[in-house]
């Protein structure tokens, strides 16, 4: 549960890695995998009108468009649901999205994209299907997220104790450092939650 902070990286990096992964099933772009493992979005399946043979360039363009859209998505948007839904509806939406994006149902040449998208859907589901994590996520969204701790991070701090109690001290020693960093970037304008998170993660890792 610890490594949820994978939806990260800057938008520019994201474009960097779109092209190579689009046509190979396994390549992991060197420069970006640490912080952008999930950023390559599959285009939304364009229903039955999806062209069978698209020139490579055209395909990439389509992907870029959808990627921009998907990186801005909230967990609710990833599951295709409004923020007011109940738990059973979240579960149902998750299964619907899984039917859409699970790599098992992907066209053979787009397994990689579908895998990445599915992992994002999974993360959204895991957060929203857990009432306490969802509450934290909602609160952060409502606040426009001024804290460095996302709902996910805080959740991990709590959950992690079970098997990582010996790491606790190490974690706490870094808390003050993290708080200090978060002070420096509390104003992020009107970006979406996801974009803000990614920006933050990227900034702070660049600071190292």
């Amino acid at each position, binding site marked *: *549960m*610890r*490594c949820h*902070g*994978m939806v990260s990286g800057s938008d520019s990096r994201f474009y960097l890695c779109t092209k190579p992964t689009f046509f190979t099933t*396994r390549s*992991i772009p*060197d*420069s970006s*995998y*640490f912080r952008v*493992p*999930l950023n390559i979005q599959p285009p939304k399946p364009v229903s*039955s009108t*999806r062209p*069978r043979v698209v020139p490579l360039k055209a395909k990439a363009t389509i992907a870029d468009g959808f990627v921009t859209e998907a990186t801005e998505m909230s967990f609710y948007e990833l599951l295709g649901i409004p923020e007011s839904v109940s738990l*059973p509806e979240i*579960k*149902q939406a*998750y*299964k*619907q999205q*899984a*039917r859409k994006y*699970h*790599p*098992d*149902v992907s*066209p*053979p*040449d787009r*397994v990689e994209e579908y*895998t990445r998208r*599915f*992992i994002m859907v*999974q993360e959204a589901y895991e957060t929203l299907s857990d009432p306490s994590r969802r509450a934290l996520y909602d609160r952060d969204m409502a606040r426009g997220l001024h804290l*460095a*701790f*996302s709902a996910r*991070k805080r959740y991990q701090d709590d959950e992690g104790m079970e*098997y990582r109690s*010996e*790491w606790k001290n*190490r*974690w706490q020693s*870094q808390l003050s450092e*993290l708080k200090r*960093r*978060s002070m420096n970037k509390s104003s992020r304008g009107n970006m979406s939650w996801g974009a803000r998170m990614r920006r*933050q*993660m990227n900034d*702070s*890792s*660049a600071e*190292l």
Partner: protein
Amino acid sequence: MAEPAYTVTSDSETNGEEKSSSAFPETAIGIDIGTSQCSIAVWNGSQVELLKNTRNQKIMRSYVTFKDETPSGGVSNQLSHEHEIFSGAAIFNMKRLIGRVDTDPVVHASKSLPFLVQTLDIGVRPFIAALVNNVWRSTTPEEVLAIFLVELRAMAEVRLKRPIRNVVLTLPVSFSRFQLTRIERCCAMAGLHVLRLMPEPTAVALLYAQQQQQTVHENMGSGSEQIALIFNMGAGYCDVAVTATAGGVSQIKSLSGSAIGGEDILQNMMRHLLPNSESLFLKHGISEIKSMALLRVAAQDAIHKLSSQPSVQVDVDLGNGSKICKVVDREEFEEVNQKVFEKCESLIIQCMQDAKVEAEDLSDVILVGGCSYIPKIRNLVMGICKTQDISMGMNPLEAAVCGAALEGAVASGISDPFGNLDLLTIQATPMSIGIQADGKTFVPIIQRNTTIPARKELVFTTVHDNQTEALIVVYEGDEKKLEENNLLGYFKIGIPPAPKGIPEINVCMDIDASNVLRVLAGVIMPGTPHPVTPLMEVRMPTIDDGHGWCAEALHRAYGSTRDLVTVQKKI
């Protein structure tokens, strides 16, 4: 045979072109290789059908006998009597031996089988041999399984009148990734391509998802999520799964499993009938094997009878002067197997805890596998799950293979006009995967029961100043002690000189939907946004045999000079 009807159906779909260029145009068959029994099933265009051998059996014994020059297996072989399997010439229980080393307790328990299992107790593959014309002829579990699979394949090809290449196999939850590679190798030896390896209860879960969807269709129901617990216990293994199912999607929430099964129950029974049986049979002479076979058959028979009657009279002449004449009642039987039943209970409880479900949350409890006939097993499952209703209308011996056949059809891209194949299994990893760090500690990176595909990463750093290398030693398991987990492989990564704690060593684990594990590692130095050296990407497992001593050898060679510690991930 003409092109089967189903390709026409799939061609009418929007992505017909992709389908026809796909590497798997045929319907993959499902195979359930059990420790003691085996079956094959296939989607025949409208439903799942179990294939029968020439003797009209759907369920065949899993064994290979080396009596003549050409070995023959339980698919085609006609046995004159059950004793023949236990004559020393036949190898069985392959599934309990495959991919295990000779220090493994499961291998040691197999030494009382009526063929030769030799151990040197140094962590290498055990030596197994069949008695052919009074000579112990050596073989390997992989070879035996491959011979058996060749027979299965030939039988299926005759029945289906087409070549068979693609298969979906069901396997125990507790199989290590190393054991999975052995199974894949056996299939390759038999000319079969593994499309999927499914944990057995997840195959049952898929069948359940299909049945549930059909019911919903018929009743026009809401199709809301149903939580089911699946308990599957055969001769070799006990597996449990909790699945959340709706609309044909089976989401595996948790898995647990162990190498306990009917074989353990049988051995306990044999020990109960003849207390010194193990030491007696270790000699493995012709007469001992004969006695062992007689005892085995008698014990097996008694266990079967105790499922339907409160006590059983065992009367057997072991031929070596000792006669057993004993009445065994159900209470005694349950007492000698108490540990087995306790383990079953703990597997169910653990699985429910991992899935975060209570007995009240369970819509259905499904009990399958040969051991599901044992009253004590039924009672303990009903007790924990607080239900009286565990009959799901599924055949306990056929459920897993039917699920595998469904997955085979789905994975082959077959579609069904009635929606019977609108199914999806969302699998989970049965075991945690991590590396050695923080001293000799197992640090999981992917926790058990994580949904796959998955990608998780963790940051580590060096423990010494100017440490120029780090050793990434990858394990799988959930044991507290590092060395009790399964070693999957290891590699080194170079690090530029720096004070300890400065380099960031990022270790990422990636499992794709086909359950292929890749471990990626890279080093980032402060002030540089990009990795300083090319990343390492290693497909695991890399080890060629299940050698726990590799880890010891590494420790001897390197000590702690290349160790890592975990780092709180920077936000």
